[in-house]
């Protein structure tokens, strides 16, 4: 494909976006070192998450080692105050943080898509009502509101995910509403409506594809954020509960024994790398989709 994504004949937004996104994912990242790093890190962590039971040297819950022993050949990341192997816990932590963060972001995107789609498509008082709800959520810093909600629901990972979904969906709803509003003016959409398509069909079949691209970028950018927020709640004792090997909770345990730096440092590094990885990837996708920077990447 010499001119892969020039939307000449068909003036629709969706094909252009799709093609750009595909181009980014297949070809151009390799010219972008940050994207390569991001993808390598993420793939690495995903592999760890899948293979953790096989590659971890010990059971993450086994309390059979020394108390707070520093890193050694036997325990490369040392042991914590409950005599558990920190390396095994960090590796198993990937099985909690990454899938949950993805689930959380997808949940938020789905809820946001439904609410944003309804608001953008129907307009009027429905739009006003939904947008005021999003304003309400935006009025608070995300982590503070998430803390309040999960404290009200009670500590636990599922409640933390729920609380964060409540905090994160308005961001998607806003973006999607805007996209639906602008794409809704396109002639093919008007044509489809004139032909008698139902609202559901217009939203999903006609408008869905043009909304998908930007939302994908948002999702990729948000996974890192979601991992941070989830770990943050766990750090505060509102997310993962003992004995779960969750990174935020492990960092929190590390703060109680500051001199045994290995207890908190390694899970902290895990959070750092995986969040950076997702951010690099998200940034690259965003740059590729932004007309101002996309050309530079693709040429």
């Amino acid at each position, binding site marked *: 494909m010499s001119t892969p994504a020039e939307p000449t004949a068909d003036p629709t937004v969706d094909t252009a976006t799709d093609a750009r996104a595909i181009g980014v994912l297949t070809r151009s990242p390799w010219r972008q070192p940050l994207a390569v790093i991001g993808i390598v890190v993420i793939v690495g962590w995903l592999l760890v998450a899948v293979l953790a039971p096989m590659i971890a040297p010990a059971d993450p*819950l*086994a*309390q059979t080692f020394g*108390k*707070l022993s520093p890193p050694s050949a036997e325990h490369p990341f040392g042991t914590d*105050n*409950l005599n558990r192997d920190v390396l095994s816990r960090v590796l198993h932590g990937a099985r909690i943080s990454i899938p949950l963060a993805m689930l959380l972001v997808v949940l938020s995107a789905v809820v946001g898509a439904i609410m944003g789609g309804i608001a953008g498509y129907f307009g009027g008082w429905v739009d006003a009502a939904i947008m005021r709800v999003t304003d309400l959520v935006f009025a608070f810093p995300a982590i503070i509101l998430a*803390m309040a909600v999960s*404290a009200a629901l*009670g*500590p636990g990972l599922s409640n933390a995910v729920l609380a964060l979904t409540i905090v994160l969906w308005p961001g998607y709803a806003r973006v999607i509403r805007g996209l639906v509003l602008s794409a809704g003016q396109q002639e093919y959409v008007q044509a489809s409506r004139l032909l008698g398509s139902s609202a559901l069909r217009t939203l999903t079949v006609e408008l869905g594809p043009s909304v998908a691209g930007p939302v994908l970028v948002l999702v990729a950018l948000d996974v890192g954020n979601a991992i941070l927020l989830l770990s943050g709640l766990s*750090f*505060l*004792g*509102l997310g993962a*509960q*003992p*004995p779960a090997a969750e990174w935020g909770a492990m960092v929190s*345990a590390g*703060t*109680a*024994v*500051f*001199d*045994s730096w290995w207890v908190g440092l390694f899970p902290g590094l895990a959070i750092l790398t995986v969040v950076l990885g997702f951010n690099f990837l998200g940034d690259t996708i965003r740059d590729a989709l932004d007309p101002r920077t996309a050309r530079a990447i693709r040429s």
Partner: protein
Amino acid sequence: MAGRLRRVQWAALAAAGLVALAACGGGGGGGGGDATGGGAKDTLVVDTAFLLKSADPARSFETTGSIIDHVMYDTLLTFDGSDATNPKPLVAEKFEASADGKTFTFTLRDDVTFGDGTKLTSKDVVYSYNRVKNVKGNPSFLLEGVTTTAPDAKTVVLTSEKPNPGLPYIIPNPALGIVNSAKVAAAGGNDQPGADQADKAEAALNKESMGTGPYKLESYDVQSEVVLAANPTYWGPNKPTYQRIVIRNTDASVQKVNVQKGDAQLVLDLSADQSQGLASDSVKVDATASKTLFYLAVNANPEVSATTSNKDFLEAVRYGIDYDGLVQLGGTGSQQSAGVVPDGFLGALAKDKAVKRDVARAKAALARSGVANPSIKISYASDLPVAGIAIGDLATRVQENLKEVGITVELAPSPAATSLDAFRSGKEQGALWFWYPDYPDPSDYLVYLPGGNLGKRAGWNEGADAGLTELGAQAASEMDKDKRAALYQQLQQQLNERGPFLPLFNPSQVFAYSSSVSGVAYHSAWTIDLADLR
């Protein structure tokens, strides 16, 4: 006591810690230097995380309040050093108890004077005690059923409705410090029924101490710091060494740095793990078992759980827990509690009577119980570290211990307030909680009996064990010290056989202090006697 929650600390505290850390990074070296001269020393800086509501003894029952009230207000009786078994005369030169344990007669010294020069008389004692009762603050329960009268200026008589052999052990509590009745009354104080509304003296008592103690209140800020100044006219034999004592509200995470840098000469809240490797030429570390008890309650009520109320299941849990492992988790200074009454109190069980882990016995008991898929849900407060130990860590360890025996433990963490409410309802299958002694006497532990305040929380209701109830009644009214001790030991041994409470361990109390300071000793009633520091 479990009912009086320490500060629920989570996010806010973490944030406060960071702020304090930042603040302290900027102002290093600004703390009080101790001019080590002959005899009197200049200033002592003490860092502790404040648990402080008031400096008014009638309203104060929190740790920090007890520390400061103890040196500002003398009591009729006191304890020496870390001893908790021999109440010693202080303001009272002697006391006598009637054979039935209902009447206690105290003879006062005649050389005790308040800061303003007035002599302390029996009128002040009656006023102080009545005020504690009628203000209805946290400590008012100490004098429940006790009436105070003064036949003459030198004599005070306490009359108890019920035999009260523990009263001499309650009297030294800092909340029962004696105030200057004329001065407090002038400041709006009231000791009559209805004082909970009528008494207005708290504000004045937060500005100025009106007691006979070795220290006076110089300034008081419930958020940041309390400054005590030596009482130049102190009547007692031990004149205070430090001219000023500054007690600063400091998060535990910062205390270590402060004592290392010399910003503070004494810090009170380090955990055993935090104090590892802190001892050096300039810093001393004392870690001793505190009187706080961690216990596991296993519900005895069949309506709550057929599993946990099964006697054999209880035995399996009791012998399945690795007590030594929990002590190790607690860190240096922690020690297994043989019974519910901590080591060092009258009637404490000898250490060799403690339950030892026996996995084979636990497995046998479990098999005998006939419970299919044995499991227990253990609830605990997730946001309330005690002595630097997260209760979740203890619960996690218990879970791992019982897994070896074949019992599945489901952990049910919740915020302290919610968790305590649920525990109080008596409907929790299992609960991991802690108990601070209200006063150093085994009678404070009668609540663990069937139908007692705590017993009910473990589903152990009135009449569940007639033998123990009878033994408890006997112990509660026995006046002879040795017989009392024997009765309480017998009681605890039976509790260890049949009771739904599994005493786990006493976590350590760590004091880290500059090597220029001496006389540091832990006492459960006032944590530390600042006037004893040299």
